[in-house]
Structures are given as C-alpha cells and as structure tokens.
C-alpha cells in the first residue's frame, strides 16, 4: 500500500498537484499538507501527499546513519 519513493511536485492547481514519481506523472491531493510548493519532495499515500521532506532533516539523518555505521565498525575487535 505504501509508496516508498518521494515524489516531486511539478504543478499545483486547486489543491491538486501533478507529481513526478521516478519519471511517471501522477495526480496527488494536497489537502493534507501545509503550504506545499512546486519543487517540494513529498511522500504520497493513496493519492494524497502526506509529508513534505525537509532537506536539512534528510541530510542530518543520512549523516547520522553514515556515522553510526563507521564508528561502531572501528570499535569492533
């Protein structure tokens, strides 16, 4: 049921967005999102955008992941 891939908003008209999922264009309702903009990456579920990915958060969690992987590796006997 869950579409894991973030989609990019390419157009907005009356609370409906055209989104680009890996090259495929689809429609998604924006009724469940605050202040969506063209260019935002969103997570879409059953035709509704449910989350806007925050660039800074995404990079931070990636950094933590990379750190977690290498740090405990160095500690391994």
């Amino acid at each position, binding site marked *: 049921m*869950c579409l*894991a891939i973030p989609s990019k908003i390419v157009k907005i008209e009356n609370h409906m967005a055209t989104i680009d999922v890996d090259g495929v264009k689809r429609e998604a309702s924006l*009724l469940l999102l605050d202040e969506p903009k063209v260019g935002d990456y969103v997570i879409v579920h*059953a*035709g509704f955008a449910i989350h806007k990915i925050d660039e800074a*958060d995404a990079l931070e969690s*990636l950094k933590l992941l990379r750190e*977690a*992987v290498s740090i405990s590796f160095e500690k391994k006997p």
Partner: protein
Amino acid sequence: MPIKHLEEYRDPAIARKIVEQITFAGQKPIRLMEVCGTHTMSIFKHGIRGLLPETISLLSGQGCPVCVTAQNEINSFIRLSRFDDVIITTFGDLIKVPGADSSLEKERADGRDIRIVYSTFDALKVAQKNPLKKVVFLGVGFETTAPTIAASIRSAVEMKLDNYFVFCAHKLLPPALAFLMEAKGTKIDGFILPGHVSVIIGIKAYLPFFEHYQTPCVIAGFEPVDILQAVNMLVVQIKTNQPKLSNAYQRAVTFNGNQKAQNIMNDVFETTDARWRGIGTIPQSGLKIRDEFAICDASKMFEINMTASSDPKGCACGEILTGQKIPTDCLLYRKACTPETPIGPCMVSSEGTCAAFYRYHPM
C-alpha cells in the same frame, strides 16, 4: 534527475556494514515483528531474512489492511454490492477476498458495478458522474488511509454530493500493539513500527504503549538500509536491555506527525471497538463516522444486517497475524490455498504473509 535521498538507503556497502553489526550483536535468539504490510513486502523483496543471522526471527504482524478486515465486514461489502443502484469503489486487493458465499470479484463477474480506484478522489469523481447511482467507497486500512477518506467525506459535504457514502472498517495500530503484548502464546522482543502510519500519527502516538510495556520500538522506512538499520537498533536495545522508542525514518517521521491529517481525521471519525480477523474485538481500535456525517455513512444509510460470521475453516491467518504461526504451519498452504484459489486474505493481498511466502519461497 535523482530521486532525493533514496540511493543511499539502497547502498549495498552500507547494508553490508549494518548486517555485520547485527551479526556481531545478535547472538541470542530474538523475535522481532514488523507491523506494516509494506515492510513485509520489502523484507521479502530484498531478501532481508536471508541476510540476518539465524538467531533473529522476523514475524509479520497485523499491518496488511485487507488481512485484518473481519469476515463479517467482507460479507457486508458483498451485500452492499448487490443493491441495484449501488456502485462499489475500492482499492484493488479487497475484491478477491472470499466472503461467506462469494467475493466482490465474483459479484463483478455477475454484473455488479465494482470499480477499483487509485484514491478516494477518484471515487468522488465516480459519484459526480453518476448522480442517479449511490457510490460507496469501502474504507479499510489504518491511520494512513483514514485521513484520505475523511478528506473525501468533507469534500463530498462541501460539494453537496448526496450520493457518496463510505463504509468505514478502519483500524488503529497502537491498540493492536498493546493487544499483541497481552496475547497468550505471542512473544515479541521488539517492534519495527510502520513508516507511513507514523508519518501521520507521529512518534508521540506510541508513547503510552511504550511507557506501559517498555518494549523496544523502532520506526522504519521502506528501503533495505532503513529496515536493516531498524533491526540493528532493536538488537542493540535488546542486548543492552535498554528499551527505547526510536525513529530510524527521520526524513519522514516527526514527533507530532501530520497535524492537519490528524485534525481532519478527528473531525470526521471517532474511535470505536473494532473486530479484527482471527483476533476478535480490540477495544477502541477502530474508527467510525461521527453522527454529523451520518448521511455519508453506508453502515447507517443501507440495510445490511451485519451478522456475525466465522473465519474460513482451517485458515490460520489469525495465528499468523499475531506471530504465533508462519504460513508453512498452515495445513492448507500451497495445497487448497494458493494465490489463484485463496482461502484466507493473507493469501489474497500482495502484502499478506502467505502470499509473500508463496511468491518468495518457491518449493
């Protein structure tokens, strides 16, 4: 154009390192449960079970929307489809689930108007185009689909559409977690919590559960690295005996969740006791449409007579959903029950554990 922050979560080098960490830490037998159908699919698709040490068992829980839908609800859907002026709209998997004497697929072959839609807005469009018909959307699923259905009900009221109805069979995940902890014969050392349910309800929704049971919980995304990282965090929590409620899906899940979606859900729905397949009634684990929106409530506007109905004989979906059995323990698996001739919903839905076993464990 690359898709934002996806490649990293599929990086085999990172995955390998995490697997080594898990193997290093996970020497004692550990039972983890994923409670999201999309996690189940991802685990099978990426062969994650095969990467983990044998000490770690991954169990699939109650997160497949079709699988937890009770038999009497399926029977009601079939009855609804038999009204002459009704068009049924639904997401795909549901139509194959066998009811007491039929399925929506069979009813459709018999000429009933049953349409698969991509979203509730498509169902609204069907209602607009067919003003002389009554269009019923079958609402199954969890906190992820519930707000999309609430939004469609509100839109129908705003658009003054008087021929759009919802049959609400929605379930809530946190009460199901508590039920699993209390269930006899179920032993779970940690939970891989769902990704998109958590996007909506936020980390905070699990706090009462976590504080009460102190069971390790990690929210996970759907890519292989996401899931491995969640397993890794759970193994460490279990090994060090330091249970936490952690978030390994920070790019999507926040502490408070999607407030707008929660508001619209609370506007339209209230909680109620709900019946889960193979499990029985869990208090306050379902949603029903509030009285203000009763004109959109199919359970009130149609005479369906929801009679009690037992699950198909011999089907072990209930035990599978609670982690007590795996599909190969079911006597019907691969014999009477296959994806072409499913007996229980766990073999119907692409997210069902029996269907996933069938597809990825050819024998």
